[in-house]
């Protein structure tokens, strides 16, 4: 991929990806984290799970060895079909086994709070 401008993948937890979420948009660039629950080799579609939330991830453009129950992060664009089912077309991905998901979740909230503070101080 050429180093042209590319959208940053917004940090999203899987449980936030529901139709009422601001992240649930056609073509939205997002970064998701979860455990590999299923992988269909024929179509290179993985299913990530985090708690009770799941997301399909199209990995056909990646050169990645996937292992069941390992934790992965993927960045890509969300495709939503007519029945509101979403699949992430992954651009990059990696195994993140060893990641502290509770720490990740808490730090993500701190990061969002910080960004909101910084943006509001600019507009104040």
């Amino acid at each position, binding site marked *: *991929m*050429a*180093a*042209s*401008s*590319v*959208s*940053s*993948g*917004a*940090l999203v937890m899987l449980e936030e990806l529901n139709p009422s979420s601001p992240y649930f948009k056609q073509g939205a660039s997002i*970064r998701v984290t979860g455990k590999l629950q299923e992988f269909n080799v024929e179509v290179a579609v993985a299913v990530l799970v985090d708690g009770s939330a799941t997301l399909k991830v199209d990995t056909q453009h*990646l050169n*990645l060895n996937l292992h069941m129950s390992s*934790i992965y*992060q993927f*960045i890509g664009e969300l495709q939503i079909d007519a029945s509101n089912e979403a699949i992430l077309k992954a*651009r*990059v*991905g*990696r195994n*993140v*086994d*060893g*990641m*502290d998901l509770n*720490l*990740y979740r808490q*730090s993500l909230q*701190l*990061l969002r709070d*910080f*960004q909101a503070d*910084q943006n509001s101080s*600019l507009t104040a």
Partner: protein
Amino acid sequence: MDALYNTHVKLLAFDFLKLTNSSMDPSSFSRNGMRLSRAETLGFVVTWELKPNKFLKFSIDDGTGCIPCVLWLNQLNSPYFSRRNPSDVRLIADVAVKFASEIQLGVIASVRGRITGYRGALQITVSDVVIERDPNSQVLHWLDCIRLSRKCYDKLSKNTV
């Protein structure tokens, strides 16, 4: 005002991309009035474009934005290095080639370098690359950036305004 001028400041991408360029000094950038010249970022390598013996362009996505980076690979044929000791230039070139071989799509990289502008956009001209193996390194970087911004950068900025 210049307390952090020669420091590699850890900045989140959304913060880095808001730096402003000084019209008086093109090598100097400002964050809320505080002059900066170097930065450090950490995140996924999400774009990659190699021109052999010239440069490697790539970008780092830290979850808050994408920072364009350029790693020069032209040390052996650039007039800029012609007056320097050839063995030093060879060493610099070898290190750059090593860094370039490590930067691949999907790796998590920590990058340091000079803040520069190219065609109106901010970028990092890379001097150091470390490939991160610990998946928690991204979270640590976020927390470092938040702490440093609140406890250090914002306070120094207030003193300069």
